């Protein structure tokens, strides 16, 4: 065999190896989701969604968990969305090249690398104790909002950066002030990108477990929350709780709850990808 033939075979072999590696993770995920579906799919019915947690696995439901997740999701969004977008606007449109903004930039990329459980410790000390919110939905939502803030800021900045300067120049040329330009031109043009980022950030928050455990979300809550100051549990914590129990019935419950959590996550990610594609097509400057 000549050298060049050998090289070509090596090249081809690596191509197959590359395909195999690319699919390895996805196949593992598929096996896993298949497993979960087999375990949990038959467990999902209306009662499972409507029942309170119970000591008997077949009577337990995820009512408190999904309502808790919904509360957390709403409040986290309410807090993080305006904060993150405003910060993104500031960094991209106002504070360029100031020493404050370079500090902000380094700081934000550092925050993005802080483990989520550390945010839990922050929330436990600041929101639960200093602000004395207790183990409430509000304390959890504030903690998660800080956690996803860097994601929203980065997404906002990228979306704003994609708006060409000519749009701003035209707006200024017509006599608009800076804020009018931002509010009426830049923001509408970048909304697609911003929403994509926000949805991805929220979907991350929905799946987050560790910081909420630290903040004191309970594994067992026998009622659905009725105000933001109530104690709460969320889907991932309910799953964690069921996984840690030896009884087989609870494992099946966990699988069923995972199906629902995954469904929520995938739908949100799907919407984000759809939005991104739609906006990319629609706006071509």
């Amino acid at each position: 065999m000549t050298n060049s033939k050998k090289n070509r075979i090596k090249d081809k072999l690596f191509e197959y190896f590359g395909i195999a590696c690319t699919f390895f993770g996805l196949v593992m995920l598929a096996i896993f989701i298949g497993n979960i579906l087999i375990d949990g799919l038959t467990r999902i019915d209306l009662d499972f969604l409507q029942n309170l947690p119970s000591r008997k696995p077949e009577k337990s439901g995820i009512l408190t968990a999904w309502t808790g997740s919904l509360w957390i999701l709403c409040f986290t969004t309410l807090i993080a969305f305006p904060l993150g977008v405003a910060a993104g606007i500031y960094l991209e449109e106002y504070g360029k090249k100031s020493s404050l903004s370079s500090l902000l930039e380094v700081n934000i990329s550092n925050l993005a690398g802080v483990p989520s459980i550390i945010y839990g410790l922050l929330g436990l000390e600041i929101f639960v104790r200093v602000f004395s919110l207790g183990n409430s939905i509000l304390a959890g939502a504030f903690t998660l909002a800080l956690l996803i803030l860097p994601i929203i800021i980065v997404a906002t900045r990228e979306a704003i950066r994609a708006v060409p300067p000519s749009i701003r120049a035209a707006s200024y040329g017509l006599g608009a002030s800076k804020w009018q330009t931002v509010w009426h031109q830049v923001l509408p043009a970048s909304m697609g990108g911003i929403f994509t980022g926000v949805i991805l950030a929220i979907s991350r928050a929905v799946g987050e477990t560790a910081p909420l455990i630290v903040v004191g979300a309970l594994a067992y809550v026998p009622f659905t929350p009725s105000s933001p100051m109530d104690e709460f549990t969320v889907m991932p914590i309910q799953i964690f709780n069921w996984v840690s129990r030896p009884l087989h019935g609870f494992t099946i419950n966990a699988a069923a709850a995972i199906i629902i959590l995954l469904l929520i996550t995938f739908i949100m990610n799907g919407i984000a990808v759809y939005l991104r594609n739609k906006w990319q097509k629609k706006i071509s400057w």
Partner: protein
Amino acid sequence: MKKRRLEYFIELILKACAVVTILTTIGIIWVLLSESLTFFKEVSIKDFLTDTEWTPLFAKKHFGILPLISGTLLTTFIAVCVALPLGLVIAIYLSQYAPKRFRKIIKPLLEVLAAVPTVVYGFFALMVVTPFLQNLIPNMAGFNALSAGIVMGIMIIPFVSSLSEDALQAVPKSLKNAAYGLGSTRFQTSFRVMVPAASSGIIVSVILAFSRAIGETMIVAIAAGQQPRLTANPLVPIETITAYIVQVAKGDVPHGTLEYRTIFAAGITLFVFTFILNNISFWIRKKYREQYD
């Protein structure tokens, strides 16, 4: 005049929102420092760093962080051993071999791996991977570092692959074309030209993967066990820093006690690790960014 004041006011509000991120950092550092300083008044730093036992919840208390660190590093090491080769090969394949259309479909699919909540991966490790591995390795414990590490590795594959791919894409086309022009195959071009040229970016992706794996919590809390021990054996139950924090937070440890403060001491250790790794990666990125421009 009124308008100008309004503009100024709006800018001030936007600035305040941006400053929240700085307050967050200050908050994190203040919380970790103040609680762990009180902790270190009762436990000497020397004991903390050299004692080989971590039993703060038992009657006979030891406060040596080493077992937790070894547990963390063990799972992290296994995870990186899984994610690095796979992620790198995927990055090379996608950037040098794969047709454009295939890449467009497969990249969002790979991102799904990172979007799955970690508690779900924990379930996967405990209920699927551990029983499977127990068939192959009969004396493996139900909780162990190996399954947790492997699953964590699968989770961070897209992390390594997308960062490495970015690094490979950033290599100037001329280098690649020169290699092809000299008659190299794609394999030779990839490994003798592209990977060395993109090495700094690839190293950054590995460091960030490390930092990510060190801070990962739920997979290890579910599947790796709650027994802090100083060992490199991946088949026995261990405990990581993050899993310890969860274990304590889950229980009912009253505020203000020494046990309560241990989670902040553990937290600051974790924070220091990830902070150093993240900053090394920033430094590398900055230093080697414009090498080819």
